[in-house]
């Protein structure tokens, strides 16, 4: 019945609006209930699937993401954190989607570009740079953060080209292994470049990293709003994430239908045929690496500003595979797929697994007895929140076996992700 309702614009609009209002009210009524927050997220999904006229849909999306979500974030700060993380991973997934989904180059070291962006701001936005260049000119002022959003793009794009140049001759699985090695090399470098010159401060990481300036503080005061940084920053970072995600989606959509995007897809489908049709393989593949990397770079800058502290632990192979799992779950080469995949996986990790951990802990502390087994005896090492790898692994295997095209397959349905059959 619901599906039929979603087909009829008026009914669908009403249904979505009601769902949004009810779930928003639900969260204010019970701010700590994960289930209700998930219902809210479910209504966003409903909004996506409902057949609603374009303008209405855009308006509803804007209200949901621009007003309702920040409002819920003021009620429970953790929800804001989840929303920001989802945004970060959506941008990462969209970047990887270009390399893997469109160009068909399996990149297993994608997190390296994220790390490059993050470290570029972390080094110059903290006193760390003084250790490299001497003097005390650093950290750069908070305003530089906005400059570095673009510096991150450039640095990561250069890293992408540097990686791309030597590996372009490789195909398929060899390319995957080399990118994996590259990712590990970047991580090991970050871990060990605290000597002979201290560049990354090794495993101890870099802190404190400057956050973007609250340039609108006078406006807040004039409006009589709270300008306490602890309250403002989550909302502020959320706004920046939304902007970046918006820009990423726009860039992806424009790229997809441009001659570049078509060239990428041609390369993915059949490299030899693409070359025969006059597509410059080297330039196009480099461009794919650079484009994909640049998104990761700019998100990395944002990530380091959000965390205030970064160390190599945030840039492991597991993160690369996590992003890969997101686009495979959603559907390779599909923009809505990448967004959905990133949201689902991030929510699963941050919300559901963590919620399960907390719940298990409560049960353990309460010493509840089920079927004659006291839960107080549960092993303390059993922490569902730590099983991200299992989630990623299951997603990868199950999707590959049962639905390789993903939940929301790309419109221009591809026969395969790799090279010719």
């Amino acid at each position, binding site marked *: 019945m619901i599906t039929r309702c979603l087909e009829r614009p008026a009914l669908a609009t009403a249904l979505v609006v009601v769902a949004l209002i009810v779930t928003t009210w639900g969260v204010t009524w019970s701010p700590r209930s994960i289930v209700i927050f998930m219902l809210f997220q479910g209504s966003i999904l409903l909004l996506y699937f409902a057949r609603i006229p374009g303008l209405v849909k855009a308006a509803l999306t804007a209200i949901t993401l621009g007003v309702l979500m920040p409002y819920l974030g003021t009620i429970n700060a953790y929800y804001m954190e989840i929303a920001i993380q989802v945004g970060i991973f959506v941008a990462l997934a969209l970047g990887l989607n270009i390399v893997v989904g469109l160009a068909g180059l399996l990149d297993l070291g994608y997190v390296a570009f994220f790390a490059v962006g993050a470290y570029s701001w972390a080094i110059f936005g903290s006193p760390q740079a003084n250790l490299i260049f001497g003097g005390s000119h650093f950290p750069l002022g908070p305003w530089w953060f906005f400059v570095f959003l673009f510096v991150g793009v450039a640095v990561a794009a250069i890293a992408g080209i540097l990686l791309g140049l030597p590996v372009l001759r490789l195909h398929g699985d060899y390319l995957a292994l080399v990118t994996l090695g590259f990712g590990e090399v970047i991580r090991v470098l970050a871990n060990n470049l605290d000597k002979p010159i201290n560049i990354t401060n090794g495993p101890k990481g870099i802190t404190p990293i400057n956050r973007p300036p609250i340039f609108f503080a006078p406006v807040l005061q004039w409006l009589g709003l709270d300008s306490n940084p602890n309250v403002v920053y989550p909302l502020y970072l959320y706004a920046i994430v939304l902007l970046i995600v918006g820009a990423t989606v726009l860039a992806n959509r424009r790229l997809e239908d441009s001659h570049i995007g078509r060239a990428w897809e041609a390369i993915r489908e059949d490299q030899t045929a693409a070359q025969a049709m006059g597509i410059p393989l080297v330039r196009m593949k480099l461009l794919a690496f650079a484009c994909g990397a640049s998104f990761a770079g700019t998100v990395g800058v944002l990530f380091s500003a959000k965390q205030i502290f970064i160390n190599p632990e945030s840039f492991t192979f597991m993160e690369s595979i996590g992003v890969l799992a997101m686009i495979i779950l959603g559907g390779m080469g599909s923009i809505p797929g990448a967004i959905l995949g990133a949201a689902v996986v991030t929510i699963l990790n941050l919300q559901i697994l963590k919620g399960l951990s907390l719940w298990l802990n409560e049960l353990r502390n309460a010493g509840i007895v089920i079927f004659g087994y006291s839960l107080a005896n549960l092993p303390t090492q059993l922490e569902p929140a730590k099983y991200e790898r299992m989630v990623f692994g299951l997603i990868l295997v199950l999707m*590959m076996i049962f639905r390789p095209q993903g939940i929301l397959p790309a419109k221009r349905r591809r026969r395969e992700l790799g090279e010719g059959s």
Partner: protein
Amino acid sequence: MDFDILIGIFPQVLLDGIILGFMYALIALGYTMVYGVLEFINFAHSEIFIIGAFVGVEILLSFKSAGWLDVLPWALVLLLVLVAGMAVSGVAAVVIERTAYRPLRHAPRLIPLISAIGVSFFLQDAIRLFESLWRNSFNLVYPTMDVLNHRFELTETIDISVKSLVVIVAALLMLWGLHSLVNRTKVGKAMRAVAEDQGAASLMGINVNRMISLTFLIGGAMGGGAGVLFGVQYSLINPYTGFIPGLKAFTAAVLGGIGNIPGAMLGGLVLGLLEAFAASYLSLLTGGAFGAEYKDIFAFSILILILIFRPKGLLGEIVRERA
């Protein structure tokens, strides 16, 4: 820089390198055999390897708590553990092939690779889950046996422990066994035929699926045996320990020429030696600026360089250009 030190530690480093090299060679065999038959990187092989190590530690720990460790002859215990580790890992490899790879055999090349990465990640946490429930700890230490820690002094500066000798002897026996199996038996001939041309092999009455399973069984058993030896030699294991040695063993397989069994042995030895020398000499030669922590980068750089400049590897088995 003290030249005497460089010369003085040389034999010891050589020895360490050889032990490490045999370890890599045993793991590399699993990669190379599967690649030879299916042209596919079995990414989960590093977990098959670590499963062997966990089987070994579980048996030794239960023997220890039963008080058998001091009663039974140590050689028998080690043999038992080794065989058990090989058996479980081999069976695990076959089960993985059945469930996660066989349905994808005719899919585009990257699909099974992604599935294999998924299996690898899943197994890491599955082992962790099992050990958390069973022992409430997933960082396990191999119980020591006094005999194994005895060291023979060869000269004043070089010594070798019994367990290192055990590792070398066991590795040599396993490599010899595999070599004779593949080259001297009918089954081995059938396996080589399947690797050469599946279609023609099946026309000759060879059951291709059974041979593929057998390849996984043998490759997995080699990996599991290596896992047990790894535990005996280096003691500390956790579910994530297998990843880096696995990656390096894959490097070794590529170095020797992937798909080529003697190549995997040679590649393993070369990589082990290179790594041992890098680990000991890098910091001496650079005055402490770059230490042993760069040995991982060293291995990955070799992988990248080999793949770019000589993808067919040292022994140059023909690797068809695959799209």
